[in-house]
């Protein structure tokens, strides 16, 4: 699995894990992100069961098992958090930050030792000591209880399924040509995003934030002006319209 430090500040750094060449066929490719401070590690959308071993190996390259203190699940999907039962046994003291709405559902993945931190609908924070990350509501995009993670210091938005692209093979980490990239995003957003109203609320909220990088859970990362281009493109896209 590719594991790479993407962005770094004095207090913390962002790491991506993905493009796993050993991933079984037929499984959607996912990006996992980690935030490492000097003594803690947060894994965001840690992924499915099939990725667990590779993810564990990647995480341990950066922190010992007892330093992995926080997990975040943007929503309840299996590609986001079905590995929870294994993390639950692996991590001695961990908290899972996830939408309150999905607690009863997510616990089906197996959870005995981990503390479930319910994120209220209006959002909240993940306090890692050295850094505080903002949880931005992204409901109905696509899940009805759904959050993005925003890092105000490094100006990074982990956008979950928003901005996701389905591309074959092992595409590069960053969007290189936005216009040609839209063909990999369009069908996904039309089908998986159900509400134009929710989409517009999210865009209005996000436009107020300074964002240098937008990092989705599938596909490539947007940087600089491509973030603005994405918001414009998404605004003009009619979603919830793939099936009539």
């Amino acid at each position, binding site marked *: 699995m590719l594991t790479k430090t993407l962005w770094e500040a004095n207090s913390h750094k962002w790491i991506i894990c993905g493009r796993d060449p050993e991933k079984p066929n037929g499984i959607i490719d996912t990006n996992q992100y980690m935030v490492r401070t000097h003594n803690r590690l947060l894994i965001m959308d840690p992924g499915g*069961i099939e990725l*667990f*071993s590779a993810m*564990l*190996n990647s995480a*341990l*390259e950066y922190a*010992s*098992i*007892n330093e992995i203190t926080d997990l975040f699940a943007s929503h309840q999907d299996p590609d986001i958090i079905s590995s929870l039962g*294994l993390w639950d*046994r*692996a991590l*001695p*003291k961990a908290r899972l930050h996830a939408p309150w709405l999905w607690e009863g559902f997510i616990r089906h993945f197996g959870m005995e*030792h981990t503390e479930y931190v319910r994120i209220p609908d209006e959002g909240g924070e993940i306090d890692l000591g050295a850094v505080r990350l903002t949880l931005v509501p992204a409901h109905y995009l696509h899940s009805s209880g759904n959050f993005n993670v925003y890092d105000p210091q490094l100006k990074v938005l982990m956008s979950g399924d928003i901005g996701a692209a389905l591309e074959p093979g092992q595409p590069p980490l960053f969007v290189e040509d936005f216009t040609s990239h839209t063909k990999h995003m369009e069908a996904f957003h039309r089908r998986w995003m159900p509400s134009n109203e929710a989409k517009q609320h999210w865009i209005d909220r996000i436009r107020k934030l300074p964002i240098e990088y937008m990092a989705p859970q599938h596909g490539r990362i947007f940087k600089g002006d491509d973030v603005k281009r994405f918001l414009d493109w998404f605004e003009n896209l009619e979603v919830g319209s793939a099936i009539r």
Partner: protein
Amino acid sequence: MLNQISLLDLVDSFNGRPIPPYVLAATLATELTSTKQTAKQLSLCSKNAQAITARADEWGKGFSGITDYINDTANIMIELADKVGKLAQGLTKASVKSVFEQKMAANLEKLSAQAFQAHPELHGLTQEILKSADSFNNKNVEAVIELKKNLREIKDCNRTLNSIVAICRIEASRAGPFQDSLWAIADTIEGAVLTLKDRMLMGDRLMNLMEMQTC
């Protein structure tokens, strides 16, 4: 990287709960990755020594005889470290699978007697799952044996290097104007030997933990 204190912290943090074997295997894989890096540095160091002894000509003759040996030993270590890393990663995966099989078997065993009576094929399925879990366990035991063997071989190489350090220092002291450069090479080798010794010790501790948890 773990040290003795952080390893104890790790064990304590589980509060008496067994550390899952896949966590130990993945930790072992990460800890031993640095072995390969150190062995690579040794190989580079031997090439550096070769360049110095070539420049030193007559002064470096004594040392030049050792450089090939250091390089060969380093290359063996690189290969072994590679094997160890792959074995430990494979062990992580197999341990995860084994956990699932055991969970599945435990769930099947919870089925009522009526269910087994009405669906006798469930007996076969339970047996099959248990057999599969056993086979994963056996594979894990084999991987642990292989891991131990490879770690022993790395330790042997390290012991050899340790004895070479003394010879390096003797030869360096005979290298006249090149003495400082070759002495520095001997220092590097000695540092690498100590690092490797430390990693092997950590490897042993993790393997012991793994065995204790299995028992």
